[in-house]
Every structure is written in structure tokens, then in C-alpha cells.
């Protein structure tokens, strides 16, 4: 390869690159630059994980938002303008999530953002929001740092979280504080921040109620664990009375199935499956619940459960969702549905789409949502609403298991409240 050839190929390559970039430009700028005024639709950009093992969570988010938008548009929209949705795949990768947010706002022309499944993605999108200056309503990412650090401490007012964060996991302590026969707890937790914080919050809260309780073992499962037998058998070697488990979605189903195989439920008093109230997980263990394989020892919560609360709003939502999609809504569907209604409420109160005005209008507002009244806390933009814990059981009213024997603790009691004390995010 002679030198001249290299140079020629450089030049011609650049030409090729220029052509590609040029056509790219033509295309990219096509969608951009239209002023979103007058009767133009209000654009709402969402993102969630729609590929990979957790693809259902992103799909649910998209489905909930679509339902809300269809309902609102059927009634004439917001301020006389229709809503328009674009939903993208965040791949559970922070870099992709940031790129999506930038694309949605600066090219597609989104007026509001919502969604985001992974905590890492949320922590990456949050700091970019002031630059984009659009509100983003987070519908899943559980990390407490999103609202505690980025909103309450650093003052990023563009962040709102409509879904219960990792605080929800401390509920286990409230649910079992009076069970005097459960003294030895073991944890099977996700080997990332969510698992560490959930386990630490649970331990902290439990210790407050019950100084006599011991935490005898903890096993840590990285993302994408396909076999939990080793984790289960490692913690069972310490003969615990209760197990606190955080793996979610398909991993949760697998964990419970493998625990059954290893005879765990003959030995323990109670198993807490943190996000076990999610629809996909309940469906996954439906057969075992029906066959009473868990012997009534399986407890769970979620960030919303389709059979709570028993209100007309919730019934209407679940029915509309089932009619539209042929499935039950899980918590990411409910929170994206409520996010769209929050946008509607905020814009109508502010009579404007301006970020600062809508944010101010939403602060301290209480919304009527399927999950019950949601209060948007001013200090950290966290929505407060109550989700109970319950025993996983089958009732004749629903084709899939539900949570029963509900223990209802008001959210303001078990959520963390400002000013926030730091919580350890380590094992």
C-alpha cells in the first residue's frame, strides 16, 4: 500500500462521509424547527427498556401512556391541543437514555419527557434536564438519589418522580415487626445499588422496631443471574426464619421457582419478594400460587398493585387497560398513565407549557390517580402514594394472583422524608 493511495482513500473517504452526513443533515433537520405553537400537538417523549429481558417493563410504560393519551385526546386534549407520543428504547444503557432525551427534546421537539427504567439511566438523564429545560416524569427507576440528591440537594427542578422509589422496600419491616417468631433474616439481593439500598433500608427500619432481630446471611446476584440455586443454598445454610429478596421481573420468577425446588418453603416462616406484586411476576408464579406451593408464606409489594385501592378510578383504569391491551397493567403502566395525567393537570393549572410554570404548578399538588391520591412533595418532587404489602394469593375475582391480607401503612410513614439522612449504598 503506497502513501499516495492512503491519501487518495482519505480524500475519497471524506467525500463519502460528507455525502452521508449531508443526507443525514437533510433528514435530521426535517423534523426540527417547527414552532410548537397554536394548534400544534403537545409532544410527549417517553423511553423505557423495550429490548432484552426486561422488555415488558418498557412495553407496559408505553401502553399506560398510550391509553392516557387516547383518553385525553378523545375528550379534546389539553388546552385545546392534542397530545402526541413518541416512545424509545433506553436499552438499560445510560448513554442511550441521554441520547434519547436529547433527540426527543432538541430534534423531535418534545414538550415533556417521561419513563426511564434503569436507575443508572435516570441518574444520567437527570443532570442533562436543566440544559434541555424540559420536565421529565420518571416512572420506574428506583434510586433514592434521583430525588434526594438531584432534586432536594442540587435543585434540579425538572425532575419529577411519579413512582414509589426504593423506599417501598422498607415496608417489609413494617409488615413483619410484630412477628415475634421471625428472628433470623437473610437477604438474596441484586448486586447493584437498588439491592444494597433496599437491604440497608430494611435492616435499618427493622432494627428500630426489633433490636432482637439478627441478619444472618446475604447473597448477592449480579444483573442477569440465570441460576439462583447457589445463592439460595448459601443463605439457607444459616437457617433463617425469613428471607428478604429483591431480584425482580423474570429473575424474581426464577428465584422463587428455584427456591421451591430446594424446599425452602418447608423451612422458613416468611419470604418477602420486594417487587413480587408486579403483574409479570404474579403471572409467572400463578400455577404455584394456585397449588399452594408457597404455603401462604410468600409476601410482596410493588409500586402499584392492580387490586388496590378499591376505588372507581382504579377499577376504571384496570378495565380500560385490559380492554385496550388484553393484559393487566403493572406498576410502570400505572405510573406512566398517571404521569400523562400529571402533565395535563400541571399544564391546565399553569395555563402554559413553560417548564418553570408547570413545575411550580405541580409542586404540592394532589392528583387523583388509579393508585390513589398522589401528593407531589415540594422539596424533592417525589409523588407520595400508599401501596400496601400483602400475601400473594389467588381469588376468584382475578385470573392471576393478587395481594391479599393487605397491610396498609401510609406512605408518609414508611417513605423517607426530607431532610434526608444518607443511607449506605454498599453491601
Amino acid at each position, binding site marked *: 500500500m503506497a502513501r499516495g493511495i492512503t491519501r487518495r482513500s482519505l480524500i475519497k473517504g471524506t467525500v463519502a*462521509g460528507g455525502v452521508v452526513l449531508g443526507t443525514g443533515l437533510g433528514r435530521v433537520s426535517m423534523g426540527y424547527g417547527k414552532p410548537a405553537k397554536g394548534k400544534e400537538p403537545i409532544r410527549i417523549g417517553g423511553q423505557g427498556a423495550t429490548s432484552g429481558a426486561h422488555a415488558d417493563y418498557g412495553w407496559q410504560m408505553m401502553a399506560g401512556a398510550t391509553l392516557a393519551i387516547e383518553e385525553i385526546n378523545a375528550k379534546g386534549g389539553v388546552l385545546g391541543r392534542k397530545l402526541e407520543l413518541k416512545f424509545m428504547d433506553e436499552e438499560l444503557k445510560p448513554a442511550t437514555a441521554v441520547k434519547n432525551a436529547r433527540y426527543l427534546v432538541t430534534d423531535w421537539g418534545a414538550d415533556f419527557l417521561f419513563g426511564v427504567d434503569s436507575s*443508572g439511566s435516570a441518574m*444520567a438523564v437527570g443532570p442533562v434536564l436543566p440544559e434541555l429545560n424540559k420536565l421529565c416524569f420518571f416512572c420506574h427507576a428506583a434510586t433514592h438519589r434521583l430525588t434526594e440528591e438531584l432534586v432536594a440537594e442540587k435543585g434540579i427542578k425538572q425532575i419529577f418522580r411519579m413512582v414509589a422509589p426504593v423506599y417501598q422496600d422498607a415496608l417489609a419491616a413494617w409488615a413483619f415487626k410484630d412477628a415475634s417468631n421471625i428472628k433470623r433474616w437473610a437477604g438474596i439481593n441484586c448486586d447493584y445499588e437498588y439491592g444494597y439500598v433496599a437491604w440497608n433500608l430494611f435492616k435499618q427500619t427493622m432494627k428500630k422496631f426489633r433490636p432482637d432481630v439478627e441478619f444472618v446471611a446475604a447473597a448477592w446476584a449480579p444483573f442477569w443471574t440465570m441460576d439462583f440455586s447457589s445463592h439460595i443454598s448459601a443463605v439457607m445454610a444459616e437457617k433463617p426464619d425469613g428471607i428478604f429478596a429483591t431480584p425482580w421481573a423474570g429473575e424474581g420468577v426464577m428465584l422463587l421457582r428455584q427456591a421451591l425446588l430446594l424446599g425452602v418453603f418447608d423451612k422458613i416462616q416468611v419470604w418477602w419478594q420486594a417487587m413480587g406484586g408486579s403483574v409479570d411476576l404474579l403471572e409467572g408464579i400463578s400455577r404455584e400460587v394456585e397449588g399452594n406451593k408457597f404455603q401462604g408464606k410468600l409476601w410482596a409489594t410493588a409500586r402499584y398493585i392492580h387490586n388496590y385501592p378499591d376505588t372507581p378510578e382504579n377499577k376504571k383504569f384496570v378495565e380500560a387497560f385490559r380492554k385496550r391491551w388484553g393484559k393487566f397493567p403493572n406498576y410502570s403502566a400505572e405510573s406512566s398513565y398517571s404521569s400523562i395525567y400529571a402533565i395535563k393537570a400541571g399544564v391546565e393549572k399553569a395555563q402554559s407549557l413553560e417548564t418553570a410554570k408547570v413545575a411550580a404548578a405541580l409542586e404540592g399538588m394532589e392528583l387523583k390517580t388509579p393508585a390513589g391520591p398522589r401528593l407531589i412533595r415540594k422539596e424533592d418532587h417525589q409523588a407520595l402514594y400508599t401501596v400496601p404489602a400483602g400475601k400473594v394469593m389467588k381469588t376468584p375475582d382475578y385470573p392471576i394472583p393478587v395481594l391479599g391480607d393487605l397491610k396498609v401503612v401510609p406512605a408518609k410513614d414508611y417513605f423517607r422524608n426530607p431532610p434526608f439522612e444518607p443511607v449506605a449504598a454498599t453491601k
Partner: protein
Amino acid sequence: MPGERMGKLLVGALLLFLVLLPLFSGRYLPYVVVQILVLALFAMGFNLLLGYTGLLSFGQAGFFAIGAYACAKLLLVVPSLPLGVAAGVLAGSLAAAFLGVLCVRHTRIYFSMLTLSFGMMIYSLAWKWREVTGGDDGLVGIPRAPVGIPGLFEISMGPMTHYYYFVLAVSVGAILLLRRLVRSPFVLILKGIRDSENRACFSGIPVRKYKLTAFVLAGAYAALAGSLVPPLESTVTPPLAHWTHSAEPVLVTLLGGIYSFSGPMVGAACFYLLKDFIVRFTQYWLICFGSIIVILVLLFRGGLVIFFQEKVLGFLGAKTARGAGRG
């Protein structure tokens, strides 16, 4: 030669276009160009190994991540963008020098597997060493620090446009440097090693030393690309080091063509724009992308640059195409 003059003109036009871009485009396009330049630097360094030395590294994302983390760490303490980037490049080069000594003793698939294992070690470190790396949440709140000399002058990097020009300048500089290098005897020897390692050995060339130098350079370019990311996104996270990220420069380089200098650049632009385009219209973007890769390997093996030279230019005029056949 008229063809070459036309080429130069077009390179100039492209540069002018990039310089003027923020004046007439929206906010999104400059961001896309920054991302493309980052990917292009990443891939051009990688191609020094693959195209010029014949070594397929499957762990380049490790050095990319080291550059990103080092730059982020420094910016969190000292708010100076050039220092941050320098720290990133330095850290990446040192890591590449250290791991390179161990890697270049091996060839072919063993080299690829070894780099894969080192890349994944870096990934697990980023994931597990929470005190330093922030674990799965990574490092957040990294400032887009200003460029300047304290007390003399300071240019704020706050607006995206400013950062765009910074990245453009750094990239053009790095690409020119690499172009000089590619025309030096050093790269001729690398090619000699690629074509026949034994012959190079017999001619008394210290093969490993050359390979190591190429490895360090590739690592430095990966780290440079990586260190441009934290000021852009204000976050760095472990997926930057994952093997699927190491696959990106491979893909991009093959797409553009491994035997041409500009191949990785063209590949990066096409790759990025293509993905950006597909994800807008379908949630099934993986299948579109996968199919494109398969078609590419089966039909356009030489890469787009050579395809363009042979088919498009060849069609436009025999004069231009002559001699550009091999590249």
C-alpha cells in the same frame, strides 16, 4: 491530479460545513456530530491495530472507559477541560502499556480473547469498586469545565456549541496526527508485521516492541475518545467498558473498510446516523441492525469507502477510479 484536488476541495468543504454547522442547525445535530467524532476517534485508534497491524482487539472499550473515568475523576476535583482530557489519555495509555506487554505476545484469536478478558476485568472493576467508580450508577455531576490558563484567559464550555468546537478541534488535530503517523516508516513496518510476522522477525525488526507501540497508540485514542464523553453527558457508567461496546469499533471499522485511512471515520458516521434513524421508527431496531450487519459482511466486505471508490466513482469516471482499486 485533478481527482486529488477535487478530493482536497471536498475535505475542505466538509470542514467548513462542520465549522459553520452550529450557526444554522438545531441543537441536536452538533450533539450527533460530537458523538460521531468520539466514535470515529475510538475506531481510528482501533484500526491502527486491526487494519495496519492485523491484531483484532475485543477489549478496546476497557481503555475507552479508563479514559472516561480518569477524565471524570479529575474534572470532579480540578475544573479544567484540557487537564481532564490529558488525564484520560494518560491513564488510558498507561493501562494500554501495562496490559499491552501481556497481550502482544499472543497472536490471532488468543490475542482477541486476552483483550476480551482484560476488557471485562476493567468492566467488573468499574462495576464493583464502588468507592472509586460509583458502581453501577457510575460517577455523576461531572462539570463541563472551561478551557483556559488560570489568570490569563478562560473559555466557558457551558453552551453545547462551545463544547462542539472543542471536540471538533481536538478530533481534527488527532486525525491529522494519525495521518502523519500512517505515512511514516513506523506504519510501513506495522504493515510488514501484519503481512508476515516471520519475515519481519527475520529482518531483525523487534516485532513485539512495534506491536506494543501500536497497542498503546490504539489505547490512547480509545482513551481520548472516552475522555470526551463525561463533559458531554456529565455521567460515566460501567457499560462503557462492556464487551458489546468493544464490538462497536470493530463494526464501524469493518463497515467503513479496514484498509483505508478514512474507513473508520466513514463507518462511524454511517453507523451512528443509521442507528439514530432506525430507532426513531421501530422498537424492533435490533433486527434491522443485525440484518444490515449480515448483508454487509456477505456483500460489502471491503467496506463502504472502497465500495464508493470502486462502484460510485468508477461509474462517474474511469479517471478517478484508476489506481484506487485496492486502497
